[in-house]
């Protein structure tokens, strides 16, 4: 990671030295599980949407942690891709949510099932 500025390099080294990778992974797992739990148990469509974002970012954290651990740039690149997709998804998703709310006057995910049957 020679291309990074001097300060950042130092920070990385500090983090590497001080925080073991398992902490990042545990945090990532906790965030992901929270996201899954929220996705499964919450009714509000915006909350569900945010939980999906949470899961994506939990994964991003793992990517970055591993990238740092193995000194590989591909982990970062994955993260950027995920963020780009997440941004696009947020734009489309929020637009859909807005339209749904306009039409159905509800954000309860259980009531938005007109495609079924």
């Amino acid at each position, binding site marked *: 990671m020679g291309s990074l500025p001097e300060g950042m390099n130092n920070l990385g080294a500090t983090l590497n030295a001080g925080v073991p990778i398992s902490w990042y992974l545990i945090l990532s797992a906790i965030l992901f599980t929270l996201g*899954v739990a929220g*996705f*499964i148990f919450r009714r509000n469509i915006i909350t569900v949407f945010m939980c999906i974002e949470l899961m994506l970012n939990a994964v991003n954290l793992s990517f970055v942690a591993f990238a740092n651990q193995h000194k590989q740039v591909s982990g970062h690149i994955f993260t950027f891709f995920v963020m780009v997709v997440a941004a696009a998804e947020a734009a489309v998703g929020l637009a859909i949510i807005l339209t749904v709310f306009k039409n159905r006057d509800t954000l309860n*995910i259980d009531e938005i*099932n007109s495609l*079924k*049957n």
Partner: protein
Amino acid sequence: MPQNLWIIPALPFIGFLINGIFGRKLPKAVINAIAVGSVVLSFAWVVKVFMTAGNLAATPVTEHYFTWIKSGEFQVGWDFTVDKLTMIMLFIVTGIGSLIHIYAMGYMAHEEGYYRFFAYLNLFMFFMLNLVLAANYLILFVGWEGVGLCSYLLIGFYFVKKSATTAGNKAFIVNRIGDFGFSLAMFLIVINFGTLNFTQVFSAAPGKPTETLTAIALLLLVGACGKSAQIPLYVWLPDAMEGPTPVSALIHAATMVTAGVYMCTRSAAIFTHAPAAMETVALIGLATAVFAATIGLAQNDIKKVFAYSTVSQLGYMFLGVGVGAFSAGIWHLMTHAFFKALLFLGAGSVIHACHGEQDMRHMGGLKKYAPWTCITLACASLAISGFPFTSGYFSKDAILGAAYAHAPWMYWVGVITAGMTAFYVWRAFWMTFWGDYKGHGHPHESPPSMLAPLVVLAILSIGGGFFFNVPEILKDMFPLAEGGGDEFTLTAISVAFGLAGIALSYYMYVMNKELPGRIATSLGGIYTMVYNKYFVDEIYDATIVNPIIGGSRDVLWHGADQGLIDGIVNGVGSQSKGIGEWLRLLQSGSIRSYATWIVLGSVALLLAMGLASGVVR
């Protein structure tokens, strides 16, 4: 010089293609021109071949078109050959075929499916010509099967009638039995001779063991019995009268049914070296002749009378072949083609006159209304009765003379049959033309297109035997049989029996009309048996047909097909359905439950991977 023999069958085949494919859209005049024209042109080509071929006895014309089957040493080519025997058959098939086509224009004029009828008829001509032109057994077999197919199609021509389709099926299925025998004979020939070519087989035949030749000849005879309606396979021919009358005349009287006689004559080299088979041929022929003639005595349907008469006359031909008088058999084949085609066409004209009525008890007195039909039918009836110097007289006496030389008792049985033949044909004649009209509507004479063929055939029936002396023509192929006994006496006796039959029928059906009824009642059981054709159909039904149908239905259909095969197939289906019923519950449509399943699944997967790699203990 190539004779281009292929043109002879090709012309009707082109007619079949045009009428079969485009016939629905063509006007009747065009259909007529194509159907009749192709057959007449084919006849013209036969004449041309006859004029230019030179001495057929010394050098038969053989043409090879292409090799059909080639397997090591064994070769079958698409070969046609013409010798004198073929020439006679070609003249009969194309000549009588042309006349009947012309007749059919008038007879079928008002029928549905006009083009279909002529397409089938042309197809029949194609296959029949193939049959007689063949230079090996396999090509002959192609024609043999083809005419069987056309026979089936034309018997079932009125396919909305249940009886017609049943009769067609019966003809086809009974012929399968015969064809099975024919196929076996061909297999034996291939094994023993290594070829199917007539010339090679016949030149090698004298050197083969008698048992082999007898087996081949008997199997060929099985085939001939099927096609030519001999005992025990004759049952299909009377039912075949369900077809239109021109079909009965062309296929079931003049040409196709004689194919068996032609085939046996063609195979003379095999038969003459198998005396036991010859004896069998003669016995079957004689038995059929008598048996069918007795049935003919009591029939009331005019076409049924002539149908049994055909069976009986075919029996005569087989008798001729069986006693070694091959050329006499072919002679009778030819004269029979003349007078029996005429009888059927005349019967068609009578039926036409009576508005579709076929029962002779509802006819009578037609000589006033249909004089031409009456005169021509009288010619045919004289010929079939063996009236002196008509065509039937010559050919029948040739056969009977040869039968006497072979075994006198055969001659006597044949003569008695001749008497019965004369009786039932003239019985039909008197019942139809004499007395008063007992039918409905107003009878009328047929149109000229129907009468012209009748007149031509009447001339041939009277003079055909005198002008075309077949044994003389064929004497290079089949040496003339030397007469046994006093020829004049033999002839006189058979003529006397024929005349007696005519006289008796006149006495019973014109002079003394109550007599037949009285005789029928006094005979009681015998009459019932004859009237019901000896219950042969019923016996066949009980012993062969019903067991096969029963076995097919109960064992093969209900047991094997419905029980076993359907059971397996349906079982697989219903099991899949059961599993699906259960799996269906998983697909609830709720995203949340899917997500739960995914989570649980991934956890399980991770656990499994962990356990496997030893990370989790």
